[in-house]
């Protein structure tokens, strides 16, 4: 058989065909049940634990919404929540500014240069986050690289570690690959012949770039931005090591409630807030990430 039956002439029927036994009958099937083991693992170590968190947030110590009332009534908590979103927004913006030109450069340079640029992204992408945060600790600490350089040229030291800017800088660097890779993967699919085409129609180079190229690259931008934003919201290690009491983020607060105060209810409630915020964002942003301009893409 041919995967698209020539006989499936009507288009409406073609979609039916894709779901009919026709296509699966004679193939070594991969029926849906092959996903059962994976679903089972997810049920066991993802759904069930999250269910427990949810349950405790409404039941520990007493049944009700006390934990949520507590969370939203406390000015400190609200400030942390707000700070978490603000930091995530700054990190996303900083990543975008760094990533967009970089990803674009990756698509226009020669082969060897591209390999070098890819290497610069992949090494931090694959390298353990703890190690990279360790590097930032060494750089930013009071006796760190930056401050000893400042001292060397006779300037007063700057407080970097345990400050919000320090957290933002570190998180930006750690999360940058997550922005570059999706943007690059969309950009390399954009037909570069479109730009000369637009110019031949009379568009100025920058106009052509802004009006033709940028819109085509948006799905990658959206994807990268949402990934970085979501990862930032739940980021734990980097803010915990680089931040201080005045730059604490939601994740550290959750950890603190559960591990130090053994308050599962309140920690759970915060976790649920974080979780709901994440999924709301995803639900809103998911349609943006879909590649709409498939017609203008080409295989690379």
């Amino acid at each position, binding site marked *: 058989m041919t995967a698209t039956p020539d006989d499936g002439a009507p288009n409406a029927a073609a979609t039916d065909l894709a779901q009919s036994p026709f296509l699966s009958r004679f193939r070594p099937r991969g029926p849906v049940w092959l996903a059962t083991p*994976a679903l089972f693992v997810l049920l066991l170590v993802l759904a069930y634990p*999250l269910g*427990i968190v949810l349950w405790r947030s409404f039941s520990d110590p007493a049944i009700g919404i006390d934990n949520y009332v507590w969370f939203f009534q406390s000015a400190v908590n609200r400030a942390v929540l707000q700070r978490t979103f603000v930091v995530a927004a700054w990190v996303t913006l900083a990543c975008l500014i760094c990533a967009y030109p970089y990803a674009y450069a990756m698509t226009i340079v020669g082969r060897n240069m591209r390999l070098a640029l890819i290497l610069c992204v992949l090494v931090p992408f694959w390298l353990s986050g703890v190690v990279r945060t*360790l590097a930032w600790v060494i750089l930013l600490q009071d006796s760190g690289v930056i401050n000893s350089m400042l001292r060397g040229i006779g300037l007063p030291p700057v407080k970097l570690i345990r400050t919000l800017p320090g957290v933002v800088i570190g998180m930006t*660097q750690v999360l940058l690959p997550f922005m570059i890779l999706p943007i690059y993967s969309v950009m390399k699919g954009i037909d570069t012949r479109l730009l000369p085409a637009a110019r031949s129609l009379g568009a100025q180079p920058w106009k052509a770039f802004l009006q033709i190229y940028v819109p085509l690259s948006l799905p990658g931008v959206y994807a990268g931005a949402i990934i970085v934003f979501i990862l930032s919201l739940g980021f734990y290690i980097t803010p915990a090591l680089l931040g201080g009491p005045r730059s604490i983020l939601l994740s550290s607060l959750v950890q603190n409630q559960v591990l130090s105060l053994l308050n599962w209810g309140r920690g759970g409630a915060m976790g649920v807030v974080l*979780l709901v915020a994440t999924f709301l964002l995803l639900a809103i942003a998911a349609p943006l990430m879909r590649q709409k301009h498939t017609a203008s893409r080409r295989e690379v």
Partner: protein
Amino acid sequence: MPSFSRIVLGLFCLLVAILLLAPTLVVIPMSFNGNKSLAFPPVGFSWQWYANFFSSPDWTTSFSNSLIVALIVAVVATVIGTLAAFGVSRAAARTGGLLRALLITPMVVPGVVLAIGIYAVYLDTHLVGTVTGFVLAHTMLAIPFVLIAVQASLEVFDRRLETAASSLGAGRLTVFRTVTLPLILPGVLSGALFAFITSFDEIIVALFITSPYLKTLPVQIYSSITRDADPTVAAVGTLLFLATSLIIIAGLLLGMRRERT
């Protein structure tokens, strides 16, 4: 684009490349520090922190723990994730999409939320500080990576080849063994690598479910950073940096060679 903007773009990219790579390089000089301090600049030169890494039981056991857990996870998650990838890509479009969305949720659930949930469950089931506990949690976290890698190669796999094999007399399992698997193997292997690294680097869940008897390497690094200024951690960082870079360079070279043939 005019050449002026090319120059600006080039300079900017150079800065970004430096931002990506350079900060991490700072661990290298620190790892040869003569003093027991992470303060900059390092003083003197010494191999003692590398020696310490290879001799101190804290470091060697946590390293071997991480290795064992990550190897098991690589095998288990690759098998489970590959099966799931088949399920997803051969299901009807809507079911497949739903299933895929479900299976990649571990990637977007905030680590700490997941960690406290798993911690709660493990406290009840006595899985805290056990290899089983680590393997379960890390397998769950690694499944999405395997799924994505294998699915990508299934997408470019021409399923009509299976039809052809069947017409030539191959039964379903033979088709899988002789045609499907060899052709999606690169995807499966990269899925396994992803799974290994996911587990090997995982820290948030590990911080919660760790015990004095079972620590993984990231946990050991983390507690070393927070507890003392021991340059051993910089030596470990340097080793991990070198290992990661070598794997990636090897991967890129391999990919280049495949491209050429």
